[in-house]
């Protein structure tokens, strides 16, 4: 062993240097979300200070240029669109996952998964384009204008379907083989195995996928902006034109100034709060599920 001392100190220096770089990077990555929250909060502070919080619910309407800041219809719109979309996507997505895990021939299951993976990668703006040109005219044929809750929910359902299907399938696939063999040994048919053994065993993973999909639905902007109609009103029927929070930000951010701009940041904060609550809820209810 020659020249061990200088090389040892060089190594130590290199290791220390690496440590500093890694810790720094992790601090940035780990602190980023906090930073974003603080930043958005900072930008929304002027509005939160100058506008009494209850006015977001009690003002007559959303006319920020006239100093009216009622955002509750848009919160309701966001929730309504996500709810309807989840009601459509969850059963279909889980059914698709059950199909490819238990009933489909292996080749078809593989093709199905690949196909859905491709669709998961399609940009939301493309879904919006398709919704605008294909779905909206068809809905308008039933009841004008076609833009509205139904169109937005349908487009959104299509968008989150791959997420639901892929996560549910992954959860079903990770169910212990022994458990399934055990069920088969007990003489359960495939329906029984799938419904009563695999589905309960995979429920944490499926639930995590649903939460992920809901978070995505709440935060989706472009596809919804393109087909929701964007009238600020409480959703009353499936055909009502409505404006979710995300679309409002995208529509008005371009020219908003002063309090108006600040309120838009505040609605961004509200959006994060909704998503954050959802994620926290899922983490608390199933600590393992989020690691999947």
């Amino acid at each position, binding site marked *: 062993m020659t020249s061990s001392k200088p090389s040892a100190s060089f190594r130590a220096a290199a290791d220390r240097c690496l440590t500093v770089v890694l810790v720094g990077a992790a601090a940035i990555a780990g602190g980023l979300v906090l930073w974003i929250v603080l930043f958005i909060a900072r930008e929304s502070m002027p509005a939160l200070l100058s506008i009494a919080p209850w006015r977001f619910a009690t003002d007559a309407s959303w006319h920020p240029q006239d100093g009216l800041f009622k955002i509750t219809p848009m919160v309701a719109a966001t929730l309504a669109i996500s709810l309807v979309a989840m009601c459509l996507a969850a059963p279909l997505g889980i059914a698709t996952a059950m199909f490819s895990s238990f009933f489909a021939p292996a080749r078809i299951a593989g093709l199905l998964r690949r196909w859905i993976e491709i669709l998961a990668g399609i940009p*939301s703006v493309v879904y919006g384009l398709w919704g605008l040109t294909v779905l909206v005219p068809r809905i308008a044929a039933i009841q004008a204008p076609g833009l509205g809750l139904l169109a937005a929910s349908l487009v959104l359902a299509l968008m989150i379907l791959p997420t639901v299907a892929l996560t549910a399938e992954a959860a079903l696939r990770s169910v212990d083989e022994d458990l399934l063999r055990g069920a088969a040994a007990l003489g359960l048919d495939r329906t029984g195995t799938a419904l009563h053994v695999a589905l309960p065993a995979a429920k944490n993973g499926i639930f995590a996928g649903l939460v992920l999909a809901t978070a995505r639905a709440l935060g989706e902007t*472009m596809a919804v902006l393109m087909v929701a109609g964007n009238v600020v009103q409480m959703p009353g029927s499936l055909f009502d034109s409505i404006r979710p929070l995300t679309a409002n930000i995208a529509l008005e951010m371009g020219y908003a100034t002063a309090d108006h701009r600040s309120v838009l940041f505040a609605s961004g904060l509200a959006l994060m709060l909704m998503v954050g609550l959802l994620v926290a809820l899922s983490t608390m209810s199933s600590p393992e599920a989020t690691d999947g």
Partner: protein
Amino acid sequence: MAEPRSHTQARDFWTATVLWLGAGSVLALLAWILGDLLLQGVGRLSWGFLTEPPSDAGRSGGVAPMIISTLWILAICLATAVPLGLAAALFLTELASRRTGRWVRHSLDALAAVPSIVFGLFGNALFCHVLGLGYSILSGGLTLACMVLPLVVRTTEAGLSNVAQEIRQGAAALALSRVTTLRTLVLPAAAPALLVGLVLGIGRALAETAALIFTSGYVDRFPESIHDSGRSLSIHIYDLSMNVPAGNDTAYATALVLVVLLIASQQLATWGIHRWIQPERSVR
């Protein structure tokens, strides 16, 4: 005994039918979308479409500046997110205590759940205004970098922690330095996962629109530097479909270009993993 058997057979039959129908309808819906994309988009597609700038508000001409802008935004995004993500992932697998690790992971999960429009708000306020970068490719790329960071970190981390503990122990027992252990043993073994993280990041960045509208802007011309505003393909699709009457054909054609780009990058990565990384690992 024939009774229950036929009962369960019938049940399986019906379940299978329902599920075939469900999966079939999902497939049909999705095929409808892709089919529309192909049918309505392919007409406008030509070599010129890819190499010419747009004219007449995008109704004619091509999308070349958007392709260039998109690639620039992507390059900035990856040049920031990949080194940062790799380093953060290395921290999580190599250095972090359980508590710190859990904290960082939770915070990254939270970041992953942040809606893209909120990234747009953040990027607009921080990069465009506070840092004074204005509506520029740089602002857009950096905003996207924040957005894809969790994806890159978590995939890379998964790849790194899959590297066998035995190898790490062996290296430690031989008193190999951390730098050597990482460079020679851990990173090569984790390379496929790194690449997958990279591709997932590319996919998310290529598809993003909302975070870019208020950061990279939508000037539909060739950017001359990263300080210029640049319209990404996704924003071009949005603009054509919303704001340009008779722009649908071009919107579909642009969408087709974007989707092909997305699928191509996915396939390229899959191919690359098989072609280079796995054989290299077994030969060397």
